[in-house]
């Protein structure tokens, strides 16, 4: 026996021990996919619509896919077009990335197969429908829409055009969330009666006067489907907190968790039937120009009695989703990807490794594989629409200050005003269907 083989470093040992607590795989883990060189004729050419912070954050996940080629960027802002081109060109070490101020020009390019849509939320559904109409496949950041009706239009548009569409609700491709789902679906916490979700406290935007449009901005294009109003820095930079551009944090982030709720409960083809809100705290209109709630509790109830409770409160790092059953609970902490549960013993089967939701590579890989096979990706339009419609129904309940009943088949509420809030007519010429 060699002495060296007995050498134990406690920290290294501890790492091993922690690994032993996780599930071992007999086969070394390896990401499936197309490794090695890919013939140019076999690459999927992508264009980017909207090259802001989110696009630049997720871009490496596309660039590092062996069978993807980023060939063009589009944005209403000149500085962002430049930054997007620079990021793509730097990766490929050339100057080949094309730039289009108007995304319709990008969509008209026949050598582009698919698009990454990472605009502001107001554009997501409209740009997606333009892309589907142009015959492109799509990866679109969440939320996929800002009204329930346009979400349904997107679903139908993709179906009619045979579009492969992946919504950027990438937690379905994240191991921690997959594990939590396995536990719930395997009955480890008994019958689920409640799903708790939490997003952080919403922001506020102080009053500020309108200003001239900054140089390099095509403000009309920036607004897109939103009815025109003057350029205002507060509104433009804080778009997440205005009804027609963002709908607030429970809509923007909440859709990640309602998507998980739907997936775990196995209700992708339906939705809750009741919505209401409680404890809403609104911005003081004397101080703030922002419109959406600062904090509050958004509730929904499925036909089988399961309740979903979405809290908008606390800090950024306090995001979570928790499934409560009559024999225990399972929680995923969104900031850390840590899964906790009661009883703790059910965590013993947790698989080894796994990357955070912040790495969207697996989700993008799923899209690419589906573009090739023409299968439906994990977050195809129907499931993405249902998840999004839940938070939008909560929004309507909040704005009307009343409890709403919902028919998930006909997709109508029990009140006329609520039904008229299913849709906001986009500004011409941005209606697609």
């Amino acid at each position, binding site marked *: 026996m060699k002495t060296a083989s*007995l050498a134990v470093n406690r920290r290294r040992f501890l790492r091993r021990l922690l690994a032993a607590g996780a599930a071992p795989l007999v086969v070394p883990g390896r990401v499936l996919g197309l490794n090695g060189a890919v013939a140019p004729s076999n690459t999927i050419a992508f264009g980017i619509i909207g090259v802001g912070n989110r696009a630049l954050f997720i871009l490496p996940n596309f660039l590092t896919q062996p069978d993807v080629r980023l060939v063009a960027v589009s944005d209403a802002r000149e500085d962002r077009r430049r930054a997007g081109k620079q990021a793509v060109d730097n990766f490929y070490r050339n100057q080949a990335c094309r730039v289009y101020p108007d995304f319709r020009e990008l969509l008209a390019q026949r050598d582009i197969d698919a698009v990454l849509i990472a605009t502001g939320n107001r554009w997501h559904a409209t740009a997606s429908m333009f892309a589907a109409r142009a015959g492109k496949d799509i990866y679109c950041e969440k939320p996929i829409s800002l009204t329930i009706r346009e979400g349904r239009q997107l679903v139908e548009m993709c179906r009619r055009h045979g579009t492969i569409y992946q919504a950027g609700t990438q937690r379905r491709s994240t191991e921690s969330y997959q594990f939590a789902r396995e536990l719930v679906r395997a009955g480890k916490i008994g019958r689920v009666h409640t799903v708790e979700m939490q997003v952080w406290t919403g922001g506020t935007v102080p009053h500020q006067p309108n200003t001239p449009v900054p140089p390099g901005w095509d403000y009309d294009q920036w607004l897109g489907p939103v009815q025109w109003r003057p350029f205002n820095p507060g509104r433009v930079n804080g778009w997440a907190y205005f009804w027609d551009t963002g709908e607030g944090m429970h809509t923007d982030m909440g859709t990640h968790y309602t998507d998980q709720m739907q997936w775990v409960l196995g209700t992708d083809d339906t939705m809750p039937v009741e919505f209401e809100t409680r404890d809403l705290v609104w911005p003081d209109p004397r101080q703030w120009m922002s419109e959406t709630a600062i904090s509050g509790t958004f509730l929904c109830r499925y036909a089988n009695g399961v309740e979903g409770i979405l809290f908008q409160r606390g800090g950024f790092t306090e995001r979570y989703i928790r499934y409560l059953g009559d024999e225990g609970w399972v929680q995923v902490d969104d900031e850390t990807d840590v899964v906790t549960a009661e009883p703790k013993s059910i965590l013993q089967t947790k698989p080894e490794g796994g990357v955070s939701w912040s790495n969207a590579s697996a989700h993008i890989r799923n899209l690419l594989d589906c573009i090739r096979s023409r299968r439906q990706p994990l977050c195809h339009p129907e499931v993405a629409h249902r998840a999004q419609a839940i938070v939008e129904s909560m929004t309507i309940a909040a704005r009307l200050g009343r409890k709403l009943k919902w028919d998930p088949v006909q997709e109508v509420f029990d009140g006329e005003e609520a039904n008229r809030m299913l849709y906001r007519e986009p500004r011409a010429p941005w209606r697609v269907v």
Partner: protein
Amino acid sequence: MNTSCLSLWRVLVLVGTLAGAARAAETDPALRALMQYQSGADATPLRQFEARVRQAVDDPGQRAALETDLLQVLRGEATPEARRFACLQLAVIGGEASVPALAALLRSEETAGIAAAALAQNPAPAASDALRRALGNAPAAARPAIAHALGVRRDTRAVAQLNRLALGEDRAAGEAAITALGQVGTAGAQKTLAALRRSAPPEQQRVVAAASLNLADTLARKGSRKAATAIYQDYLAADQPADLRRGAFGGLLRLDRDGGQKRAIEALRGDDAALKPVAIAALPELKNAAASRAFAAVLPNLAPAEQAYLLQALTTRGDAPARKAAQDQLNSPHLEVRLAAIAALGRLGDTSTVPALARAAALTTNVVELRAVETALAGLPGDEAVDRALAAQLGTRAAAAKGPLLGALVRRARPVSYEVFLRESASPDAAIARLAFQGLSRVAGPEHLFPMLRALRDLRAEAALEDAQAAVGQALRRMEPKGQGVLTLTTLLDASPPARRARLIPPLVFCPEPAVFLGRVADAARSSDPTLRNVGLRTLADWPDPDAWEPLKALYPTAASETERVLVLRGLTRLLGEMNARPDAALVGRYRELLGSAKGDNDRKLILGALAGCAHPEALALAVEQLNQPGVRAEAVMAVKKIAGAIKGQHPQAAEAALQKVP
């Protein structure tokens, strides 16, 4: 009441309403504030009117008053932002009374968009009339919005006007009209769209296609199968783009009375690759119980990727033909098909599937496939019967094929597998032994501690030792602090020869009360057996708490070799570093003692590195003393700066004085 009387009555009502509204604007400060609203100002008026919308939902009286006030915003001297706001509210609560004022806004290209959006949602038939009337005379820039609104309202009486726009020169208005015709869907609209499919310029064909397919869906829903089929067939033509062909084919499948089964099977038998994924996608929704069998029959004729997709679709049906198809494809020559079959069986199988999957594992060396088998077996529906079947297969397989089976048992983590794990822990194959210990760590209870420790002691696969120790550590963490386990462990340590005892030493740090075993580890570190001594020293050097200070310090002067001496020194230094959290004079005394016994500059550098984290004035003084040692001056300077920085709040003079002495 005839039409002219009705109109007169409406005019009178309107005049009355207007007069009332004008008075309201003069007297109502909230309304006046709303009309003057601009971004940057107090938004209270907006929020007040939104609150009134909420109140108006259940109160028709309040609703009428609110609508009147909002109309005053449209008619009076209001800012553009106020008008926009009013239109957005009227889109939700506006009725027939809103139509004239909104119609007036259609005449201006600045306000036509917000007015058309509100009219699009207005339930009054008069809204359609207003939009139609406006379309002919509106400025060019306003026409797309008006055409869209007519489309939203599915206004059949607008078709003639929309037809003219669709066929006209104004491209923006034309595209809006084409889209609207796709929604309206009358015979006239169908005819125009059919003409455009043949004659529209290429740059407009995508708009025409979207409208036509939308129309076809609407016709299909209404039961106009023939008309819908004609449109779908147009886009199914071979010269159409693949995405449109797929969309049209899907439409035809949905139209078929059998859900598209016959058409889909035909497509799968054919050679049109663009349509096959759509045909496969139809399978899960088919009501016919025989559908799985029919689709499975064509599976062998498909390309590998299509076969894999079809297996996935069959899995969602979950019936016997689906399971049989998956089992048949376990022998496919194509990896992606086998992977799909394995995944399908993981969902559809049961105890009886275990031998087939075990055989699949035995036939491959591909790691992806082996992992797929393991995953399928791990998730196989069924209780302990599946685990027993897996255990039975393990007994019949060569070592190379055992991995996925054992891995699946580990992931299933059922107590029934304990004996299997214990047996396999003695395997000479490191991968198998490693898995077996991981399984033991999951299922072993307190009563299994002794056999598990004995298995570690007698381990045959040397390469699995660290993993086995980690697994035992996991089990030891669950041990009762003063329970039977302590006695068990002590007995086994005493009864084992030195080289075997060495294997049991490292996991001791994970006992709930490691101090119980500190003496035994120290004994090991003093052993004459080099293996046991080395393990004991290293375990002691990594001990989780300062209790190890004294035994380590005692070992320091008597180390048998320079390697062991350095090992002990590093352990001592690490402990000092961990004790820095509570710095006091006693701790500094330990630093001084250790520095005093240092054998050279390398030792002193190591100790100074730890000393730098000791935020205590005496530590600072000790670091300053080391400035005189040329061989460690750089490390001493760094320590002085760091300690001075940490204590300058409480001891500013000492910190300042020390900093004066360093560059």
